[in-house]
């Protein structure tokens, strides 16, 4: 089980978009709820979480620089192909490490 965390300012808008994008991409690759879980966090609570992967925009990534997790950034939150290109290698590597 790979734990992912989508981070935005308040946890209401863009974090939800990132979460939906991640879920669509991973499901399309055949992964299900036994393989991953995506949570949403606002930037003030994100640092207290311990996912394997944070996914967020460049601005929030700056304040996550020293966390003990992969921090991936996306520019276009609506672009599934960008999320896919950024996420898949890292996701599959971590999933294999945990097997």
């Amino acid at each position, binding site marked *: 089980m790979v734990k992912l965390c989508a981070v935005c300012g308040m946890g209401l808008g863009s974090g939800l978009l990132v979460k939906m994008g991640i879920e669509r991409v991973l499901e399309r690759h055949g992964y299900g709820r036994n393989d991953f879980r995506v949570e949403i966090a606002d930037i003030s609570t994100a640092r207290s979480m311990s996912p394997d992967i944070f996914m967020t925009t460049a601005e*929030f990534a700056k304040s996550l620089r020293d966390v003990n997790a992969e921090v991936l950034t996306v520019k276009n939150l609506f672009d599934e192909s960008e999320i896919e290109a950024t996420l898949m290698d890292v996701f599959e590597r971590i999933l294999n490490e945990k097997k």
Partner: protein
Amino acid sequence: MEINKLIRKEIVDVNVAVEDWQGAIRAAGKLMVEDGAVEERFSDAMIRVAKEFGPYIVVAPGIALPHARPEDGVIKPSIAIIRLSTPVNFGNEDNDPVYLVVALAAIDNEQHIDGLKQLAKVLGNKDKIVEIKAATTKEELLNAFLNA
């Protein structure tokens, strides 16, 4: 909540002229105030959030998604959409300039999720982006979002 209750003709507009990014957010806020969707203080709250967190609200090339908290004066869950007559910069080096402002008024973490799903479906589709940029009336812009 159904998408056509969140995105309504009254809170959609095209060819909106603004001076800067704050004007763009206020223009979307004004539509929502006139529609009874939010209180007047909601626009100030959206601008405060944008200043507090930086220009991350520009979530895709040319598209800003300003929003504030439910307690900042949201009356009913709404998504206002305005296309600017001239794009303005929000200070986001990846995604400026902004031509489309999609303002989100949420009452909790749940009610607007279907709306966001629809937005993701529309704004992640290149053909839809062409349609949105080409819309000349508010009806055409509204249809681009509802018929996906």
